[in-house]
């Protein structure tokens, strides 16, 4: 018994480190979990990118689920995500709202003109003040908000076809059942 003790200890350590490697391969340790999931989205009123005179607010979006995608022209990962959004935006079945984060409106417009615009509407948060209420700490980030204005899902980092098929679409289907 005493002789096998070092071996047992070693195996325990192997199990512990193995678990650590497995866990980290599935979770990004840098990812900040959002405490807002399942809670009402913060109230917001933000101007349209194309026409700063018009605004979009949380209250005006109540009644139907929608997807908010935080992006910026300076954000490199957003460029990776962009083709995926171009391909899937029309298949999602919910409005896709672009949230231009801490960006020059002119840069954002040029970026969309060059790469294509997958969004039904783009709103601009130049100072990033509202983004703090949403707990945004980078781009891209995406929020799925239901008909009652509750945040149901957040994705940190670029969407991939896999994530859209596996996580986003089943959830959208469920939300649409909830809100006929």
């Amino acid at each position, binding site marked *: 018994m005493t002789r096998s003790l070092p071996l047992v200890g070693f195996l325990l350590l192997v199990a512990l480190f193995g678990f650590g490697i497995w866990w980290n391969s599935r979770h990004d340790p840098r990812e900040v979990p959002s*405490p807002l999931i399942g809670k009402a989205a913060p109230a917001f009123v933000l101007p349209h990118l194309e026409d700063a005179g018009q605004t979009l607010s949380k209250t005006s979006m109540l009644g139907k689920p929608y997807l908010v995608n935080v992006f910026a022209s300076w954000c490199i990962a957003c460029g990776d995500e962009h083709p995926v959004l171009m391909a899937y935006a029309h298949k999602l079945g919910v409005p896709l709202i672009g949230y231009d984060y*801490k960006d020059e409106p002119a840069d954002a417009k040029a970026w969309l003109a060059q790469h294509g615009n997958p969004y039904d509407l783009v709103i601009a948060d130049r100072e*990033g003040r509202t983004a703090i209420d*949403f707990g945004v700490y980078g781009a891209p980030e995406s929020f799925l908000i239901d008909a009652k204005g509750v945040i149901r899902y957040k994705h940190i980092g670029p969407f991939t076809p896999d994530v859209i098929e596996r996580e986003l679409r089943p959830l959208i289907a469920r939300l649409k059942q909830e809100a006929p």
Partner: protein
Amino acid sequence: MKRAILRMVLGFLLAFAGLAAAQAIDPLPFKDHAQEVRFQNLTRQLRCLVCQNENLADSNADLARDLRHEVFGLMQQGRSDDQIKQYLVDRYSDFVLYDPPVKPSTWLLWFGPGLFLLLGAAVVLVTIRKRGRATRIDSRLVDNATIEQGDDW
């Protein structure tokens, strides 16, 4: 002469160093020194979400600057330190705090090291006891051996 030039150069360098430092810490209109100390103390306890191993006070990240301004604005509104922390936790989870709060999900984090220390102490204790017993038996054997040898004499 040489010394005078050196002094002038040094003076210039110091003046510019001061200027650079003043620009690095983005200046906020504190109403007095006590408020500034409170601000520095509070932002040192908060994590920059972008760099993550830096606190809000030291970070140069854009978001850290925004959050510093946010903290400053909340202080101006007369919110307490705890209220400001809660405000950020509501948006960014406990992650934003450098010291995670003690609650069931963080018990292992807080008390784990103590647990391992106790475990180690127990192992050491058991080992020492065993060795102690073994040496006593050994010495008795040696004693017997000498006595036997003595008998041979």
